[in-house]
């Protein structure tokens, strides 16, 4: 047993080595540099910035009190908004199932299908709902059809990606057992994969419905139907009291959506 005396007394300690410290400071410096660049080169009219609180106060004053005169058409538009979100989510859920199936590494039939599936999901996810709406308003004209299709297209990517991940995470053991019984591929999916993916499926579908409810409220701003169209109209005519009325109904709708979706989620689990 060696008991060599310490060559030097240890009287200093630091959490990071010199190299780590340099890297940390370097990272910080880089971040500050980037922020400074962004701040400096962005075209900000500083007079407007200082005037901002005034302007916002003025805007707020004009919005009060909210004007309920147009409430019937506002509520009808809200109802349309709910329909857009609900119908589009339902269709998207159905369409996303096969896409998720071919995008999951453990269930895809071949590499080509895998890449097709991934491509569909990526393009769907990367284009914002509003951009899809721009496209479909150009194709189908203003109205709720453009809105429904836009929400559908965006939702497929979201649903497909999460469902695909859920499929990839399943326990393969029941699959092995059913293969050993001689069940066909379809029946294996039905009995070993679907039940395992069910909770994730419902959670994701409900989540997307909630998000779509929010997205549907603004589709009208580009002409794709729903409450957004009334909002745009009110803004264009500087009818601020009506604007605040619409905003209140949107707020109520969003809260409603949150309450319903958390209730449903609790029921599923």
């Amino acid at each position, binding site marked *: 047993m060696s008991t060599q005396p310490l060559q030097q007394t240890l009287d200093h300690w630091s959490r990071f080595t010199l190299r780590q410290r340099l890297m940390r400071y370097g990272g910080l410096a880089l971040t500050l540099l980037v922020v400074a660049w962004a701040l400096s080169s962005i075209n900000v009219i500083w007079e407007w910035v200082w005037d901002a609180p005034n302007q916002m106060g003025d805007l707020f004053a004009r919005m009060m009190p909210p004007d309920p005169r147009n409430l019937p058409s506002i509520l009808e538009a809200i109802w349309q908004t709910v329909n857009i979100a609900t119908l589009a989510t339902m269709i998207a859920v159905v369409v996303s199932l096969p896409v998720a199936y071919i995008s999951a590494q453990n269930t895809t039939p071949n590499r080509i299908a895998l890449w097709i599936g991934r491509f569909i999901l990526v393009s769907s996810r990367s284009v914002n709902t509003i951009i899809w709406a721009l496209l479909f308003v150009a194709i189908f004209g203003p109205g709720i059809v453009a809105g429904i299709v836009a929400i559908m297209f965006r939702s497929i990517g979201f649903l497909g990606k999460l469902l695909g991940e859920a499929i990839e995470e399943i326990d393969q053991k029941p699959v092995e*057992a059913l293969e050993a019984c001689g*069940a066909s591929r379809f029946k*294996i999916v*039905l009995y070993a994969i679907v039940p395992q993916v069910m909770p994730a499926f419902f959670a994701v579908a409900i989540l997307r419905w909630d998000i779509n409810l929010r997205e549907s409220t603004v589709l009208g701003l580009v002409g794709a139907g729903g409450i957004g169209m009334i909002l745009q109209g009110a803004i264009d005519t500087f009818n601020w009291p009506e604007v605040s009325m619409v905003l209140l109904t949107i707020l109520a709708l969003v809260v409603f959506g949150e309450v319903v979706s958390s209730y449903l989620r609790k029921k599923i689990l």
Partner: protein
Amino acid sequence: MLKITKLTKRYGTGDPVLKELDLTVEGDQLTSVIGSSGAGKSTLLRCINRLVEPTSGSVDLNGTEFTALNSRDLRIARRRIGMVFQSFNLIDRLTVMENVQSGRLGYISTWAALTRRYPREDIARAYELMERVGIAHYANKRADELSGGERQRVGVVRALMQRPEILLADEPTASLDPKTSEQIMSLLRDLASELKLPVIINIHNVTEAKEYSDRIVGMRYGRIIFDDLPDQLGTAEMDEIYAGVPAMDRAEVGAVA
């Protein structure tokens, strides 16, 4: 009768896991396969129904050469082999009845499978078997609400629902406590004689193997080095089967060659 001839399984370019194995199982005997980890017991079992693809060799069950089947015929042929797994491999979120009926998926129509409208005879037989193993009152319970021993019984019933010609069990009691383990082994032995079914069980508990089997097969690094009645398994034979490491084994083989 199950006749395995010169069965070899090699992963990549390494040493083969199964080395030209020969094994014949007939009648309604319960055969236990013992050996240390890495001896190839699990691979052997899975090569029989081709859950693992054999590299070469033949597996013949009552006249059907399993290694020569295309995927569609293989599916049909697999119905004749029942398998029980160490981790039970049940579908946790489905009921016991559905799990048990999933053994019939190779036989029933897609519509029946989808709507859970199983044929009357299948339901009757399921209740019969569940009653026999003692889980009939769990028919409507979710599989993950059962204890380990109960779950394995579900696995056994599922395998028997196939009306198989042979039953394979891959370490069926490894995840169970000793008492439950004995219950399952006893169940397998009784069922084997009641249904006149040959049974092959992978097992690492040699005491249980000796107590419940009609025949013991000892494997060592891909070869069968013991094949006899349980009471012929003495300490010398056990040492042969369980002692040593692969490198030593290879050295032995090298010395002979």
